[in-house]
């Protein structure tokens, strides 16, 4: 019998009954929600400098703080040489470890003295430098941001230290079950696509040289592929003037890298057991590729994945935690990127219930396509997502970061304000169709990090290969 058939049969057997709580009436004297207030949509002033740098300003009148987010498209982990996975993280980390004007210590002290911070990180689709400071220090902090982004010096001693610490950091991370599980599920979901290679390796770290960093900086951090978002107590005209002063004379050199090829939207499921001797829990991950952020399915996928695995009221949490007591937490996320996406669920469960927990996850997957979600549950989840937008929007830096992340994944600035109305428009038939299209158990890869003894519980879910 094929793996696919086995998975289908199990899914069919384990469709759980609807939760009793769902049908139960609400307490009779519980007050109703008040009417929703109008959705606040940030006003974004936009300008593009002559060198191609896009600048967006979102004035806010809250905290006495200014936030800058400078994002570079195509400069992230997906652009890394397969022989040096995770390179973009090292590149990002070293930007603030020395510039043509200051050494690492002086940069840290400058940020501290402005009541702020500066730091960079790499994601799949980009490299982002973020800085903030007390409102009165907007100008010097923007100058520091420009210095770090434009003229990092990559001192040899800092490069050597970063590599040495990355090697130790990698050793420490390998001891965590979640780190190994993430690597394996990404490999299963993305195969040979660069999105599978976001963690560094010992060989890759050892291969990094100062020359690699200098060359990658020149090619990847360039104004014609950059967005600067400024939020805080500043008016747009002054913000544009500041941005021109800090970045106006910056010229791109050479050719930018080609865009990342699209990743496949389907994958042959893989079943991986990573042995972790003496582990008292199994780290379970269930995943498959999905679609890019710009795909029409993105919004209904967000709704469907929230119903299944977003927050305490989600089906996975209610089933695996609140009903069965298998886990501290079960979750599912739709990771939508510029060139692809993934649906990845996870839970860490005690050894004895490894197989049973996996069965429940897959049963919930099946149920999403098998029956229409009730109006009440759908409404709860749509309001939960809308609430998340409002809560995030209250935070100044979160607005800047969301705008930058949307831009990195190919979405226009208007997406921020359109997101909630689009979520509200999703109906039960769409959710069920998404369930059928993306959540059939036969399409899912499974990774289990745990003791060798748990493998016996996995035989009904696929032909697992064990590796150390």
């Amino acid at each position, binding site marked *: 019998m094929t793996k696919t058939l086995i998975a289908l049969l199990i899914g069919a057997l384990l469709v759980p009954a609807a939760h009793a709580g769902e049908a139960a009436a609400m307490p009779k004297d519980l007050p109703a*929600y*008040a009417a929703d207030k109008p959705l606040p949509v940030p006003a974004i002033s936009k300008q593009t400098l002559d060198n191609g740098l896009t600048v967006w300003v979102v004035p806010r009148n809250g905290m006495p703080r200014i936030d800058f987010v400078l994002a570079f498209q195509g400069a992230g982990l997906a652009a890394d040489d397969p022989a040096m996975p995770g390179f973009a993280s090292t590149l990002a980390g070293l930007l603030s470890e020395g510039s043509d004007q200051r050494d690492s210590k002086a940069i840290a002290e400058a940020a*501290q003295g402005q*009541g702020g911070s500066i730091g960079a990180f790499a994601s799949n689709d980009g490299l982002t430098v973020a800085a903030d400071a007390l409102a*009165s220090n907007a100008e010097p902090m923007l100058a520091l941001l420009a210095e770090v982004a434009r003229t990092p010096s990559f001192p040899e001693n800092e490069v050597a230290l970063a590599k040495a610490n990355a090697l*130790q950091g990698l050793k420490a991370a390998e001891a965590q079950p979640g780190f190994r599980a993430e690597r394996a599920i990404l490999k299963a979901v993305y195969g040979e696509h660069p999105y599978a290679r976001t963690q560094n390796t010992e060989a890759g770290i050892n291969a990094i040289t100062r020359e690699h960093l200098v060359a990658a900086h020149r090619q990847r951090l360039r104004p014609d592929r950059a967005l600067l978002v400024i939020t805080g107590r500043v008016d747009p005209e002054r913000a544009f003037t500041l941005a021109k002063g800090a970045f106006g004379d910056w010229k791109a050199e050479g050719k930018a890298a080609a865009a990342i090829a699209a990743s496949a939207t389907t994958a042959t499921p893989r079943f991986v057991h990573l042995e972790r001797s003496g582990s008292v829990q199994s780290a379970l991950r269930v995943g498959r590729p999905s679609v890019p952020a710009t795909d029409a399915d993105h919004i209904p996928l967000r709704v469907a994945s929230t119903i299944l695995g977003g927050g305490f009221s989600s089906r996975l949490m209610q089933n695996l935690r609140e009903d069965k007591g298998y886990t501290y937490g079960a979750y599912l996320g739709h990771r939508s990127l510029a060139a692809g996406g993934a649906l990845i669920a996870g839970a860490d469960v005690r050894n004895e219930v490894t197989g049973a927990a996996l069965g429940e996850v897959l049963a919930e997957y099946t149920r999403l396509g098998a029956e229409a979600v009730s109006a009440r549950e759908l409404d709860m989840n749509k309001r*939960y997502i809308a609430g998340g937008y409002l809560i995030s929007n*209250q935070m100044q830096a979160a607005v800047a970061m969301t705008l930058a992340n949307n831009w990195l994944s190919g979405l226009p600035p208007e997406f921020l304000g359109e997101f909630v109305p689009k979520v509200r428009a999703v109906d039960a038939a769409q959710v069920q169709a998404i369930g059928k299209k993306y959540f059939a158990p036969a399409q899912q890869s499974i990774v289990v990090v745990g003791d060798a003894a748990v493998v016996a519980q996995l035989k009904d879910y696929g032909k697992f290969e064990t590796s150390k």
Partner: protein
Amino acid sequence: MSAMRSPKLLPFLIGLTLSASSLASDVDRFDLPIAVKTLDNGLTVVVSEDRSAPVVGVSVVYKVGMRSEPKNRTGFAHLFEHLMFEGTPNAPEGTFDKVISGGGGRNNGSTRPDFTNYIEIAPVSALEPILWLEADRMKTLDFSEKTLKNQQDVVKEEIRVNVKNQPYGGFMWIDISQQAFSKWENNHDGYGSFVDLESAKLDDVRAFHRDYYGPNNAVLSLAGDVSPEEGFALAEKYFGKIDQRPTPKPADFSEPLNTQEKRITQSDPLAQVPAVAVGYKIADRGSPDQAPIAVLAEVLAGGDASRMYQGLVKGKEMALNIDSLFGLTGPFEYDGPTLLTVFALYKPTVQADQLLAEMDAQIAAIVKDGVSDAELARVKTAMLADWNNSLESFLSRADTLAKFQALWGDAKVANRVPAWIQAVTSDDLKRVAAKYLTVANRTVIDRKPAAMLATDAEKK
């Protein structure tokens, strides 16, 4: 206040608030509007209005935590916190989360040595249902065997995922407290033993709720799109009819600074890189030393510009990181014996003794020379900004004010913290470094990968 043990020290700190901030421009000041009212049943209500977003943060802080749990029930305060989400006679299991999620909100709870907090953030349209739910579970719970068993299982999974299945297993807060303190209230494992957790009975749950979860032992705090008048009226409407309940007097869990160093080496079966935690007992809440200790921690271990980061991660290149923590809370959010702990992963080529010697040299330099005006100004500016940032989210704003009301007896203390920090001098830092960051007052755990420890043993 059930646990204010040093009220005599309060005037010292209050006196400090008069010195105005000169470290940064006035535009950088972030004073919160804070209104406080106590209902007839003893529930204290705090409201901080901010109309910048149609969102509200809610925090209910109960003045009970790990220190006050029954002696044969380690982990009970935390298990009880979980049960607060598991239903009441009016709102069966599942209702709580559904109502808050359906209102667009997020909720959580956490247990600390001196308090337990229950927090929500949501669009303001969900405020009344949230207050109804909080009041409902303050009255009573449904005390069900089924949910008790379920949450015993969930808590054990929480301990597995955070402690037993993780390298380092939280030793920088669990084990270090067990080693550093002498009284049971301060040195038992607040996550709990599995035996004690499994022994918990419904009668324990009933008694704990009755004794510690009355309105007179709680603070309700709201921050965001709500005025004090609205907030007080809603508090009266939903909580006003809940009866007071007598709260047991806390044991005397005070203890002096340690007079002899404790050194422990632990074997970690999962870790691949060695780590060290160095815990120092610090001043009581309200002591004039409290703010100087907060600044000292920042000078030594607060971020990339700090002395230990520059000296040990950079400089000598011995450590991978330097982190500092005040138990499980912050420098102003405790009300009993607490540790300032420095935690670092270090390179296998280095011995813990070398790391400690380097830390001691950094401390000795402050005891001898203090810190320069420029460094002190920089650190204070960073702390002011961090303080502002920590209050940006309406959730953390409501929660911080609730904790200050519960621990200090006055939420308005939160607006004084920036001035306390500003008033700290180099001489203060010399004094508190010499008094608290001593070898005699410290507890050290050297946590080594099991394989490395076995190799060490062979060499000997």
